[in-house]
């Protein structure tokens, strides 16, 4: 390639990759905060462990690939992958699970394909999916110290439903809950192995949607009628608020024009449409309400933060819409008819598969051309 002597343009907007990545990370903060508020420190421990392993893995791979470490490490892409991965993995997961997942994400899913910008699949979701396939048991429980909320609320000593003293004592942000989370993440630190076994069973809690799917309508109704909340009202509220927090973060990204509206809107509209279509209140129950699909699971973070990863997503406008629809359909169908509990990771990876094809076929009509395909083809090589 011959380099032209002129170097126009000389002016630049000041955009750069690390500020983009940091903005996305910033937009995740409300969601992380709300998650911590309700589910305790597990998510923060996840993030810390994933971050450390992500940065170390990135630095080592860059060293092996003989690249400049400082500029690429500071572009924030490894940080963002680690954040998204840590949020996806259940809180209370042991450290080695996180380490395996994030190292796989950074080394295999990202750098073996050529590093930033070259990976066809979302690294964080690759790591998550790999863990889900390899360690299904560890990946399906949502270990949160919400026992601390649930238990005493249900068996309040005097039978008075008073939230105030219960919160006071059993706040997930309390020191005790923090210790529990730490023990879960670093089981080797437990002085007494039985201490661990006790609360692992007790703390397993799935998302409301998963509970819904597992339980079925009749069980749910029976539980409601008997005065028990099968999937604790508090947990449901927490999921709502977490999703709303991620929605807010996503709206911030839209407002800052870091992401375009096409992918999130397409995903949310598709999930909403499908869940409304198949929802039958009197029917056989496994489908769940549209509201539950949007706010009772990881739909918002998936739609705004994971599917919008530009490297692995479709890049043209109409391509993004189709990409969102494909992911939306995949999310819904894997959730409802598939055998996996939540479906964002597989749905996004499936969307990644389709992205190059979408980019090829969904090109915009070029200015001054009557159709989408350019007509002035160069004569083929003889």
């Amino acid at each position: 390639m011959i380099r032209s002597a002129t170097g126009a343009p000389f002016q630049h907007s000041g955009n750069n990759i690390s500020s983009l990545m940091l903005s996305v990370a910033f937009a995740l903060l409300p969601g992380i905060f709300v998650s911590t508020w309700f589910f305790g420190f597990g998510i923060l421990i996840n993030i810390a462990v994933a971050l450390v392993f992500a940065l170390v893995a990135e630095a080592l791979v860059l060293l092996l690939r003989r690249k400049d470490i400082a500029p690429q490490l500071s572009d924030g892409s490894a940080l963002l992958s680690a954040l998204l991965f840590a949020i996806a993995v259940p809180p209370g997961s042991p450290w080695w699970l996180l380490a395996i997942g994030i190292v796989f994400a950074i080394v295999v899913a990202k750098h073996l394909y050529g590093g930033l910008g070259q990976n066809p699949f979302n690294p964080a979701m690759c790591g998550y999916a790999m863990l889900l396939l390899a360690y299904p048991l560890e990946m399906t429980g949502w270990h949160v110290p919400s026992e601390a909320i649930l238990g005493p609320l249900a068996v309040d000593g005097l039978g008075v439903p008073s939230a105030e003293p219960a919160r006071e004592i059993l706040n997930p942000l309390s020191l005790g809950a923090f210790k529990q989370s730490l023990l879960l993440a670093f089981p080797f630190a437990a002085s007494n192995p039985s201490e661990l076994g006790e609360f692992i069973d007790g703390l397993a809690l799935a998302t409301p949607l998963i509970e819904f799917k597992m339980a079925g309508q009749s069980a749910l109704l029976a539980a409601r009628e008997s005065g028990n909340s099968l999937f604790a009202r508090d947990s449901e509220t927490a999921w709502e608020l977490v999703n709303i927090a991620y929605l807010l973060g996503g709206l911030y990204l839209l407002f800052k024009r870091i992401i375009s509206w096409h992918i999130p809107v397409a995903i949310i509209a598709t999930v909403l449409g499908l869940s409304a279509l198949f929802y039958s209140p009197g029917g056989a129950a496994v489908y769940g309400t549209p509201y539950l699909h949007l706010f009772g699971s990881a739909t918002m973070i998936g739609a705004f933060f994971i599917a919008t990863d530009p490297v692995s997503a479709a890049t043209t406008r109409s391509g993004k819409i189709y990409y969102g629809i494909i992911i939306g359909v995949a999310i819904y169908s894997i959730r409802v008819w598939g055998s996996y509990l939540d479906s964002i990771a597989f749905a996004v990876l499936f969307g990644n598969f389709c992205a190059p094809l979408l980019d090829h076929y969904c090109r915009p009509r070029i200015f001054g051309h009557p159709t989408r395909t350019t007509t002035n083809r160069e004569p083929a090589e003889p």
Partner: protein
Amino acid sequence: MSVYRQLATRLLGHDSLFVRRTFGGIHPPAFKQHSLRSRIMDTPIPAQLHIPLNTTQRESLSMLVAIGERVRKYQKLAEVSLGDDHGTSLPVHAPTSGVMRALALAPVADHESSEQLCLTLEADGRDEAIALRPEANAAIERLSGAEIQVRIRDAGILGMGGAGFPTAVKIESGNGFGVELLIINCAECEPYISADEALIRERAEHVVAGAELLRRACSARRLVIAIEDSKNDAIAALRQALESETVLETRCELIVIPAKYPAGSERQLIECLTGVEVPSAEYPTGSGILVQNCGTAHASYEAVVLGRPCISRITTLCGEALLTPKNFEVLLGSSIDFLFGLCGLKQADLSRSVLGGSLMGRELASTESVVCKTTNCLIAAGRGELPAAPAEQACIRCGFCADVCPARLLPQQLLAHCKTGDSIELIEHGLLDCIECGACDYICPSHIPLVSAFKDSKLSIDERQRDRQRSKYWQNRFQFRQYRIKKDKEQSLASRAEARKSSLEPIEQAASEAAADGAGGFSKEQASREIAAAVARVKARRGASSSDKDESK
């Protein structure tokens, strides 16, 4: 017109909110306010001028003055042939009085070429001018389109916006198609450049009159002046000029368009104003539209009404390295050093000098370059003002570039194909429709020099196509040679056969004549007699030759 539109017009003073939106574009900071702080100033006469001749070939020049000759201001110095089919030429005039000193190649601040043949004129400072013959208004009203066109040519006017296409030729090219609409482009969307805005602010009447003259020259039915909504003073001046109509009767419309880069790009401007997308491989004239720059309109006014040839232009001098950035009416051939000096150049601060705006400009190798008819802006960038791009990072396919591309291309995909050098895929993705506006570069978070990559790919595609044409040409030549050799051979064979045939011909003729003779009294006896005689002759000859052989033995 809707109520909302009227309301907006009343509130904002224009209705650019309701003009059609074109795709893409960016809103970079414009940095025009500094150079617009003062009025347009005349420069003092520099001691020496290197008047660019818009060519590098001496053959295309026909000199009208000799080296060493004294010339006066406005005097025609040379005719430069454009090398087109019609044999069109453009004159060059003396910007001031003085003595012609040399004709040589010199660096020129032109967008297309960095060097041109220049005539060196040593100014005497007396500025003695040939008397101009201004036309009376009534006479101008009577001028035909062709006459206006001739005067525009005789004044040596080029497109002043930057492309530098000879205005008379452009008008001529429209005549074949029948121009419906003439657009006067006052958008000037690129950062830093404020020459057109300054010009309109101060001489709106002349611009409008020039626009009307251009309309008459190309006999367009409709005349539109398009200007960005950010140029309030210029809009007001144009409004006033249109209302007063002192110079020429005109039915010119003023359309205010939303400020955005590149709103002033010809095709984008046409789409914004009319909704017509000029087809990719065609010129706007094919759609019955002609676009001229407002500087061109002003120069046309001066040429036709005042009889003044194009010897100066308005050039913006700006940048942080200048103490007093401003717009100058610059004599063609003034050196950039001289102009920067007039604006108080802080030499220590100068990091680079750029011709044109910050997005499509060209870095000038030397400040000795001289101003030519297309030099619209000169930036003396201070330290850190237009910094070199930081190291390129990987493309993360964020698609910002596709969002801002006015041609609706996908620069991120094009870049991938540029790297593989797949020319078919590049053309399929519209590389040749790239207008090189630089919006993608501006927005790219990875600082990838996209436009440079596209320019290089265009060059290499060009190169490859030329290679292909060249090899096709030589292949044809070779095949023709083979064919010719083969044909020569056949021909020589045929001609030899012919020759043999023709040598036999007399005999045959004789035979046929004899036959014809004998036709009267042909007899078998005569024939047998002749045959017998022939046989006897042959035998006698054989006998003689054998006896010869015996003798030799």
